[in-house]
């Protein structure tokens, strides 16, 4: 019994440290997300003025831009964990990559949808095959491909390796999304916010945008910690099952 217990604990050493930590952090970040979103939306809807060109439709920006940023950040994070999982075989890294994917896909979908709903009153069309929109759509397919590949292969290690490989190859798409508005003549406007030139908007708009971005970050941390906890428990269950079977075979 002691031998199997020891292997069990070694196997989940990092996960067993992670679990109680996630228990403490997740509620804090979820609370933070709600507070930041409420303040951000209050400023975005009640303090920030109407745009003289776009009217009120520009207020979609406070959701669209953070969602689009998150879709790219989360992908880079997922790919980084995929590299760690693939090269060093760190189990927790694989769990993190796997847990990030659905939330990344959700933000990508929100970015596309809010973009379409913003595009209609602003450009007169919901969709156009321009470089920014097309590469962002490809990002959604990369997320779905990662998730699909992971669940389609029955053997978990092989599934993890195949999905991680896809995620790593897909990194090439992220700079294409980011620089598409510079590299090509797109209908999508360039960034309204740059470190070198500052923001081309009022300070109220900027604070609403940044607060919503931090809210999205806090939400992502909270929900990914919770999903990772669920995955840890699921995998622990499988490992426990396997160890019990081998023990029963011995006796």
């Amino acid at each position, binding site marked *: *019994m002691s031998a199997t217990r020891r292997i069990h604990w070694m196997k989940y050493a990092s996960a067993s440290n992670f679990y109680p930590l996630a228990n403490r952090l997740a509620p804090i970040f979820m609370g933070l997300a709600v507070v930041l979103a409420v303040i951000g939306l209050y400023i975005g809807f009640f303090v920030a003025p*109407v745009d003289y060109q776009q*009217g*009120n*439709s520009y*207020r*979609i920006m406070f*959701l*669209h831009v953070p*969602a689009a940023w998150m879709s790219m950040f989360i992908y880079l994070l997922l790919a980084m964990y995929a590299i760690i999982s693939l090269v060093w075989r760190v189990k927790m890294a694989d769990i993190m990559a796997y847990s990030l994917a*659905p*939330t990344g896909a*959700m933000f990508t*979908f*929100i970015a596309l*949808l*809010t973009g379409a*709903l*913003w595009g*209609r*009153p602003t450009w007169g069309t919901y969709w156009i095959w321009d470089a920014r929109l097309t590469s962002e759509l490809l990002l959604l397919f990369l997320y779905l491909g990662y998730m699909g590949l992971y669940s389609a292969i029955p053997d978990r290690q092989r599934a993890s390796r195949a999905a991680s490989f896809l995620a790593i190859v897909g990194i090439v798409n992220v700079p294409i999304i980011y620089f598409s508005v510079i590299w090509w003549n797109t209908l999508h406007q360039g960034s309204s916010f740059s470190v070198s030139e500052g923001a081309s908007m009022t300070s109220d708009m900027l604070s609403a945008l940044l607060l919503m971005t931090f809210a999205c970050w806090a*939400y992502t941390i909270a*929900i990914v910690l*919770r*999903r990772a*906890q*669920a995955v840890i*428990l*699921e995998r*622990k*269950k499988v490992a*426990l*099952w396997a160890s*019990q079977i081998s023990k029963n075979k011995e*006796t």
Partner: protein
Amino acid sequence: MDIAEFLHMGGHGFYIWGSYGTALFLVLVEVFFVGKRRKKAKEQLEQMEAEFARVDNQGISG
């Protein structure tokens, strides 16, 4: 400010509330399903641990 006027958003209500409404819905759905998945996994693991502990004890005594 008039509530109807606020919701109308100068004719952009559908686009704005469609955006925020869908996002809120998706977030709530994600929170719900992640919570459910975690709860289910926890219960099943605890059940299994209890079951195996019982089997092990029987093995020692029997």
